[in-house]
């Protein structure tokens, strides 16, 4: 479904991602792991269209989308839950959800989908008319995921969902991601908590300073020397 070939992402002179290849089949879950600054968010930015790759290609559903602007990629079914959640703080929870589906669903379908989201994230219901900025970190993460799901995406990318959340809330988030996986959703997950990420994922790619240093089925990556020492503390 997603095919990234020889991707290079640069910010001016600085190279953030170099010669990266990724393949993600429909229904698969891929974990992208690596230290801070390894280029994980930059990879997601290139797939979502927030940055244009300096080199390489991004293909989605057989179509070359390397130069497509982010809004068109969203309409093709790519959704990103960005690092730091980035809910629209001044807007209500309801308005955040509405915007998530504004370009994908008509008014009636949006209402149905928003109700589904409230079923999936019951905590959002009691804050439905509150400003998103007043929610806790965990609630904002739920809202950010719900906003992305409003569009009924084919590919959901999530950047560091557990960042800054209490352990109990992290468990809630990962329970939800597991349920989404079980429902057949294709996901690309960036996560500092490598044990949780590899547990959820089918396959994994390890990045270091912008390059792939290891990739393969998630259990193999979890069992590798590199990951056990550097990320799992074993």
């Amino acid at each position, binding site marked *: 479904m997603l095919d990234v070939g020889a991707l290079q992402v640069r910010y001016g002179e600085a190279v953030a991602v170099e010669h990266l290849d990724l393949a993600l089949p429909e229904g698969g879950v891929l974990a992208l792991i690596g230290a801070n600054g390894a280029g994980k968010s930059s990879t997601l930015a290139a797939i979502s269209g927030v940055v244009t790759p300096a080199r390489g290609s991004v293909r989605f559903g057989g179509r070359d989308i390397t130069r497509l602007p982010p809004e068109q990629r969203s309409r093709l079914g790519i959704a990103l839950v960005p690092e730091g959640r980035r809910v629209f703080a001044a807007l209500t929870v309801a308005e955040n959800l509405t915007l998530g589906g*504004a370009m994908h669903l008509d008014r009636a379908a949006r209402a149905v989908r928003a109700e589904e989201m409230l079923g999936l994230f019951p905590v959002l219901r009691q804050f439905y008319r509150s400003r998103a900025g007043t929610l806790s970190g965990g609630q904002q993460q739920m809202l950010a995921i719900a906003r992305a799901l409003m569009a009924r995406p084919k590919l959901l990318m999530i950047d560091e969902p557990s960042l800054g959340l209490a352990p109990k809330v992290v468990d809630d988030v990962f329970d939800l991601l597991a349920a989404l996986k079980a429902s057949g959703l294709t996901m690309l997950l960036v996560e500092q908590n490598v044990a949780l990420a590899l547990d959820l994922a089918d396959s994994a790619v390890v990045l270091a300073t912008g390059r792939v240093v290891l990739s393969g089925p998630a259990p193999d990556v979890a069992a590798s020397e590199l990951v056990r020492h550097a990320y799992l503390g074993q």
Partner: protein
Amino acid sequence: MLLQQVINAISLGGIYALLALGLAIVFSITGLINFAHGELMTLSGYALLAALMMGMPLLPAAVTAVAAGALAAVAMERVAFRPMRGASVTSLLLTSFAVSNLLKVVFQNAISARGKPIAMPDWMAGVVPIGSFTIGVGPLMSIAVSALALLGLELFLRRTVMGAAMRAAAQDFNTLRLVGISANRVIAVAFLLSGVLAGIASLLWIAQRASVDPMMGFVPVLKAFIATVIGGLGSLSGAVAGGMLLGVMEVALQALLPPSLAPYRDALVLSGIIVVLLVRPNGLIPAVDTARS
């Protein structure tokens, strides 16, 4: 007398508020301070003149004028500002100066450097009795129109999906694009709204002066710019508050200053603004910090 002065102050403040809002909407979304906003006002004025000369009744002519302002604003964005998307604040500012001057020159050469009279209907100069007082119809109508425009904008921003998108764009444009909402469309609507507001302000300005000239938009938009700074650059409620405050200050000084000091009115208003900004450097109602997520 006092009541009439209060009405005048609100009426003038309302016009500044409409113009300041137009500047603030565009600034909050694009980071551009559009100095050519005044020329949108002027262009609406000429559109009103043309429509009346072609024999249109006042109301359709007024609608035509506002539509012309809106279309011109969208065209201005498409032709001048879209190619500059992502450029530095300075380049954007210079572009808007260039557009402003270009339009002034076009108005001067294609129409006339001098003012063209626009006849206003007699009822607008009339008065309505309120108890033992009389109040001018013109300023009252101006207040009503400004209030309706503000209310309409508020409803648009609060009740429509596009309105929510515009509020979101002011906070986090990239994330808005990630959910599929087109940057081009949101920016075009921001300019469209600013053009509508400039067009309405133009009608209210002309209603009290009965003429249009190439420089017409310059002074009111300069004042509106000051109003947005007082209110908090990029803050919409701040723009309205700043516009009102400026209108009230001007009318109050006009009424209270002895004639010998009258020439210093604008200097005194600007001094007052400096005091406001010393006390509240980010304006009366600062814009939400867009860097916060």
